[in-house]
């Protein structure tokens, strides 16, 4: 059961973790929009340990406005960045964060 639908505004958790993961520092704490669903995949936190019983989570393509990611972004307002994020790293964006 997926938690987020296409078009939902989501914020990447600020979590710092000692575990191997693939959630880029520059996305953490930032808000974007779900633009595509990806399949359920083994999360990198478990994959790195080659666990047979690794946890599987739905993944999402999240689109960020470059202006929201980088202070003083020198490009244009319409420029964007997309990346894939595991559901566990996402929370619904708070009001006013959209």
């Amino acid at each position, binding site marked *: 059961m997926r938690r987020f639908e296409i078009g939902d505004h989501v914020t990447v958790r600020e979590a710092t973790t000692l575990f*191997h993961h*693939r959630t880029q520092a520059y996305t953490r704490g930032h808000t974007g929009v779900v633009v595509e669903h990806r399949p359920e995949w083994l999360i990198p936190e478990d994959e*790195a340990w*080659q666990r047979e019983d690794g946890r599987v989570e739905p993944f999402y393509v999240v689109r960020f406005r470059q202006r929201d990611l980088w202070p003083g972004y020198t490009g244009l307002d319409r420029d964007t960045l997309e990346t894939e994020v595991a559901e566990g790293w996402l929370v619904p964006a708070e009001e006013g964060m959209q």
Partner: protein
Amino acid sequence: MTLSANNRYPVLMATLRRADPAPPESDRTPAPWEANVQATCECLSWRGTLDNLERRQAEDALGETTYADFPVHTRAAVVTAHSLLARGEISEHELETKMNEVRARFRQA
């Protein structure tokens, strides 16, 4: 005009002193040993000794600090060796002995 081998242009030497530790290496043609290193990295990752992502992160970290003197295209080899040493998969003595042996073998040819 003949080129003098003795004449060093200060502007060029200054470039070396200022050189970024990780300059972008444009489309140079890789040497054959580089492909061997990549295959070794794939094998080590696939068979579970050294994950590709961890190795890449180590390449970035060590390549810009400890091994900053090495050209970017040599980092995979140096850092793979470093990682195998650091994890105790091979010892310094073993690597040194093997390199001496390989060097002697290559000289024979």
